């Protein structure tokens, strides 16, 4: 059951990652691409947290948790910068 949970969520994570990655390559709209990258990142985080999970009784492996926390902050930073660039680009279009 532990393995199943790990497996299940891990596979979902991988699926989300693949989905996000391919639609990031496929879509042309900038905002959508940013969304897709975030979904892909979330998929990876899910994979890591699933790997860390060791059942309802045992404490999970804290290392991936720390990695994901770092990852979330990094992903936010990148998204914020990307969105600011998009915004600026629109402003130059308007001007």
């Amino acid at each position, binding site marked *: 059951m532990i393995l199943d949970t790990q497996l299940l969520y*891990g596979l979902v994570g991988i699926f989300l*990652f693949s989905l996000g*990655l391919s639609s*990031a*390559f496929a879509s042309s709209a*900038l905002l959508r*691409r*940013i969304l897709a*990258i975030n979904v*892909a*990142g979330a998929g*990876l985080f899910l*994979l*890591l947290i699933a*790997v860390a999970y060791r059942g309802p009784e045992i404490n999970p492996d804290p*290392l*991936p948790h720390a*990695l994901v926390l*770092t*990852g979330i902050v*990094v992903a936010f*930073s*990148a998204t914020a*910068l*990307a969105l600011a*660039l*998009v915004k*600026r*680009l629109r402003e*130059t*279009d308007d001007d």
Partner: protein
Amino acid sequence: MTDSLVWSIALPLSGAILSVLLPRAANGIGLASVLGSLAAALAVIWTVADQGPLTYAIGGWTPGLGIALRADGLSALLLLLSALVAVAASVYATAYFRQAEQRQRFWTLWLLLLSALHALFLAADLFNLYVTLELLGLSAAALTALSGQREALEAALRYLLLGLLGSLAFLAGVALLYTGYGSLDISTLTHRLSPGLTGWSAAALMTSGLLIKTALFPLHFWLPPAHANAPAPVSAILSALVVKAAFYLVLRLWLEPFASLSTPELVQMLGVLGAIAVIWGSWQALQAERLKLLAAYSTLAQIGYLFLFLPLILETSDETLRHAALGGLLLMALTHGLAKSALFLAAGVVQQHAGHDRIAELRGTAQALPATTFTLALAGVALIGLPPSGAFLGKWQLIAGALQAELWWMLGVVLAGSLLAAGYVFRLLGHAFGQARYPARSLSIGRQEIPALGLGLAATLLLGLFSAPVWSLLAGLAPAGGLNP
């Protein structure tokens, strides 16, 4: 002396922090921290030459639980390259950015980028590498957008998003490796990794992520607009150092953790991609109408050369050949780093002086800017790979290795690549040498022209004539077949 590993990262980072706090003193803070990190890099290489590879366990925790910094000949040389180019580009930047606000923005981001580079070269932990890659990618994209022009913003955004995709692929590989092998430490993984689906998928993900970042054909399309539209000192750093950092990681990963996974077909494929990059990049550079675009396309070609070396290094059992080729590869990388930064810095001077960088309209440059024209020529010599540049020695090893390994197609690539490079370099010089009817007065902008000239001279003379230590630094690095028993 192992503290110098930390200092080479901490100094630029402190510089960045301080220049946020004290924006008016950014010039001084920036220069001081860049010089400090050069001193630290020199100390690192000195110690590595003296004592062999260095490891520094941060926080005193054993690598695996904690994070280690590591320097061997390979990373120490690239660290030194980066510190050297940094000093030149920094001195240049003090004169290039005339507006205080703009200068301050440059400094903070640039010092952050430099810390990322140094952290990347010294990293020994895969997740730590992911963080440095992101730091590098974000700061590079932000610097690309610095001019605020539409093209620059567009290029920066594309650069950022592709970089993110690359980092994500890298992180996916890291996650798989941690799942399967329970460690993030590179040398631990080198011992544990064995051929299998996990290893192969991780290697494929991480390598393709890095290939995007290093702009190997066909993942190169983001590079020319980014490098051609950034401010000159930024282009210099991006072309000379940032793409090289990603390549360094490819090399590091395949020399160490993935060594046991490499197959001749795979390595040959990378070599073939490199070959296409050489031809394609050089051809595009030959067609380029703008000087900075020429320089950017030439970077694509030069990255291709680095990948051409991989079959010689990763798929040979001959230790001498491997060592010679590794030295050649590094010499090519170092030469290109110095030469390309010199080229971009010189291009910046030309652009500021002429108001544009259209190659066909550069007549009279040699009269107005003799030192800069000379820099362009020196950089060109190094890009073609003519003696006495370091790239000549590198190319020599490449050809010799290809002959020894009987990879005949590689000879054709080097031949064509060299001639095309000569074509684009001398097309540029031909226009620059053209006599203007009313030449502008010869002028010199010391703080901009001298750093560029220094880099050009270092690429051609220093690396050409005093590069023997490169090979001794690389001795014993990653013996054939990886570290696996």
